[in-house]
């Protein structure tokens, strides 16, 4: 089916995630014809609808989304993030590593065969990576400003507020105001503001999280956040952004075609065209230009398979940790419906020791998540956390990607091996981060629960980048400032594989801005040639 469309398209885009759609919009808007290919996996159960407490109290079929017919919540019991346990998101991650022939060691290899890719399970944290945070970006960061604006306005971002995080996020000009904080977060932010001088002296900043969530209904069917709390399981209102929405919008362009259900293995030069071959060696598409946006791991495998002579690449990931914060003054607070996405964001501005993080309501988190980590017996843990959670927040935090030292290697049989490891520098950085965070939150009357600060498994953050980095003077296996892979003329990288560095920040929006810039340049080339 794909092959039938192939001859007439100018560009094949592999992957329908945020990078793929962001690169495609400028192309189709400039009249370039695009065929988009992805794994085509669709959700099998809808995310729950209604208010969390209500649904939990009355829905006899709640196990279908909490545990899942395939017992997703039990299969993934050891996974760090509760997202992997959400039965409604099972389809997002399903079969990715097997279909792409990825074998990992001490590394959680995350990717997606779903239409819309990993963004279906995205926490929706957005930020602009500032010029001084990039290392080795081969063009002026300011060039990205129009792309940031286009992407931010299209996906719908809220959280703009004149607070200490305005500069950190750098996108308030294009974002809607923040949704109201829940009482716990409101309490923490007020106390932070009261202690601002002390906090700033310790280079700790806090403010509203900027999140890709809608605060007003849209004409395309996406609706405003209803604070249902179900974010973890996917948004029934489509208020949280997913590239799936953009895929829908793209399908209205006459030059756009979409073919789901192919997992691409490699490209093959065929005159001045590229043939796109799947795992069964079938040609699924053909075009002069191919944009790889299959997600860092899959994209890297396709690029290495196509290059043929290159077998290793670096792989940046963000070291991550999670912890719980208890607000003693809120003990016994009534359970209030609260959104499940990040409400507050914080950053430690320590140069190479920088860190950033987000805090979340526990209102709609399964208590089992806490029981599993508690030192008490299960029965007592259930009772303790049942009483404690209405005064508890959870938080995550990310450290910069330069701490990671993962190795990625393509074996002769086509299997991509990933070995996860972190540099020795990380241990110290984590300890310093923990102690600053503990002190700062204590100042805001939020106690970091003892023993709750847990380092995440390597790779489970799913912030992968830097395997085929953009360089001013790219070597084989690196990419040019316009995203073209050195050694593969006409093959461009739109996803995070091409990001040259990975600061402690949500990198999705920056990746989308780079993809938008790449699409814009490519559109010009296509029309010119």
């Amino acid at each position, binding site marked *: 089916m794909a092959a039938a469309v192939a001859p007439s398209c100018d560009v094949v885009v592999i992957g329908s995630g945020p990078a793929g759609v962001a690169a495609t919009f400028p192309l189709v808007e400039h009249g370039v014809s695009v065929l988009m290919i992805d794994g085509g996996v669709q959700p099998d159960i809808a995310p729950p609808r209604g208010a969390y407490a209500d649904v*939990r109290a009355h829905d*006899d079929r709640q*196990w279908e989304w909490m545990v899942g017919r395939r017992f997703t919540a039990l299969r993934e019991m050891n996974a760090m993030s509760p997202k992997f346990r959400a039965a409604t998101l099972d389809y997002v991650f399903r079969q990715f590593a097997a279909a792409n022939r990825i074998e990992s060691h001490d590394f959680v290899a995350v990717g997606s065969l779903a239409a819309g890719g990993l963004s279906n399970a995205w926490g929706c944290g957005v930020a602009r990576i500032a010029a001084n945070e990039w290392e080795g970006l081969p063009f002026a960061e300011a060039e990205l400003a129009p792309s940031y604006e286009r992407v931010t306005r299209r996906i719908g971002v809220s959280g703009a507020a004149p607070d200490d995080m305005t500069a950190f996020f750098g996108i308030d000009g294009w974002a809607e105001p923040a949704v109201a904080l829940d009482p716990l977060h409101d309490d923490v932010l007020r106390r932070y503001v009261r202690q601002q001088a002390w906090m700033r002296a310790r280079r700790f900043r806090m403010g509203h999280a900027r999140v890709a969530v809608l605060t007003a209904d849209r004409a395309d069917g996406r609706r405003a956040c209803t604070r249902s709390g179900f974010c973890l399981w996917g948004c029934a209102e489509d208020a949280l952004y997913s590239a799936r929405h953009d895929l829908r919008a793209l399908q209205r362009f006459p030059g756009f075609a979409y073919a789901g259900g192919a997992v691409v293995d490699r490209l093959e030069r065929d005159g001045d065209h590229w043939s796109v071959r799947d795992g069964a060696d079938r040609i699924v598409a053909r075009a002069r230009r191919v944009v790889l946006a299959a997600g860092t791991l899959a994209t890297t495998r396709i690029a290495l398979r196509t290059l043929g002579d290159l077998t290793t690449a670096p792989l940046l990931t963000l070291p991550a940790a999670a912890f719980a914060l208890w607000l003693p003054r809120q*003990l016994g607070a009534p359970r209030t419906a609260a959104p499940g996405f990040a409400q507050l964001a914080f950053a430690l501005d320590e140069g190479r020791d920088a860190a950033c993080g987000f805090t979340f309501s526990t209102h709609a988190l399964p208590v*089992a998540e806490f029981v*599993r980590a508690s030192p008490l017996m*299960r*029965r007592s843990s259930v009772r303790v956390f049942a*009483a404690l959670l209405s005064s508890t927040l959870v938080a995550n935090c990310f450290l910069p990607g330069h701490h990671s030292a993962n190795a990625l290697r393509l074996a002769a049989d086509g299997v991509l091996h990933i070995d996860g490891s972190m540099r020795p520098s990380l241990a110290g950085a984590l300890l310093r981060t923990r102690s600053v965070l503990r002190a700062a939150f204590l100042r805001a009357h939020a106690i970091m629960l003892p023993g709750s600060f847990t380092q995440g498994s390597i790779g489970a953050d799913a912030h992968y980048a830097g395997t085929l980095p953009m360089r001013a003077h790219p070597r084989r296996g690196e990419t040019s400032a316009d995203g073209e892979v050195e050694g593969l003329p006409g093959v461009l990288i739109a996803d995070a594989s091409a990001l040259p560095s990975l600061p402690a920040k949500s990198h999705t929006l920056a990746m989308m801005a780079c993809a938008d810039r790449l699409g814009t340049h490519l559109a010009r080339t296509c029309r010119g040639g």
Partner: protein
Amino acid sequence: MASDSTRPLVVTGATGYIGRVLVAAAAAQGHAVIAASRRPAPAGVQWLRYDLADELRAEDFPADGTIVHLAANTGSAGPDDEELELRAARRLIAVAGARSLRLVFVSSQTAQRCAPTAYGRLKWRIEQAVLDAGGSVVRPGLVYGGAPGGVFGRLVAVAQRSPVLPWLFPAPQVQPIHVADLAAGLLRVATRRDLPARAFNLAMPPLSFTVFLGALTSVRLRRRRLWLPVPAGLIDAIGATTLGARLLPDAQRIRSLLALPLIESAADLRLLDLELRPLPAGMSRRGDDRRRRLLAEGVALLGYVLGERPACATLLRYVRAIELLRDGVAVGVPHWTARWPAAIALFERGRGERELEWRLDAAVVLAEASTAGARRFMPAQSATLPGAALRILAAVASEGAWRALRAICGPALRRRPAPGSAE
């Protein structure tokens, strides 16, 4: 243990209650089975048409190997029929001699020279003929379990139909044996070359017929029945009359059942290295109590987490999860924890690799994902300061109490195999 699975095994009565199970078990072990029966053998098994009344041709039988003689006349017994069975046995003895086959005759617990029933006396006479010819005899107790058949099939049918069951007094004693255990025993007698040719008793130690019928109704049929006290002598008296024998076609069998002589089987079971499954396990449809134990474990673990008996749907989900994601076998917490789930605290050992810890975590996840879980995990009462503080204090106090109790009971609990440690 010398055994031989390459030599052929002829099974008469191969389509009967015991025969079906024996043929399947023998085929599964790789024996070359010849099913000798009136009705055709199941697919994949060689069939030899056989009737008790038939004259036999020795050439139809393989040379070397064993004949297990299960065929019996299960209709009402008259003097002619008795002679029929005896003649049939003599023909098989002759064939066995001609083809150098071993002969194993499956007799009955009732077989005695002076048995009160003709059935028992007949079996004794056949036994003597077989033993005299150098064959072996197996005397099973009351065969039960598996697909209903034989006496067991009739008991199942009666218990299924009748809302009232007789509570016989004085209670007759029965010595059950599960049909699959009997088949395993028969295979050993038939194929092991190190055994003497003699009679083997295969049965459990005696237990009351009422206990047996109770297990049949509660485990097999999962029903409750009214029990009506009936003097055992009454049934016996009815069966003894001509009219009674006509009204109750199985009268002879039932009288036999009620007048079973006790047999001593422990030594034979040891010799055959045969361990009989417990009655509740054998009574379940699957023939073991794997699922029953898993359900009990689910009641204990989910009840421990929930503080109340889990809903049926939650319990089944637990069983399904363990069957799908783990080995499907109960981890071995004591059965009484199903009645007193709080005591699981004595076996919980914090977080670790042990299977029990995984199952406890799974129980927490499954228990929470229910409306009962919502009440327990998101209680409205904790939405006040005193409410929340009290609940936390109570939980911590109970944690302390259980830890103290565990420290005291520790040595006693450690003597049993630690649950889940082997997995």
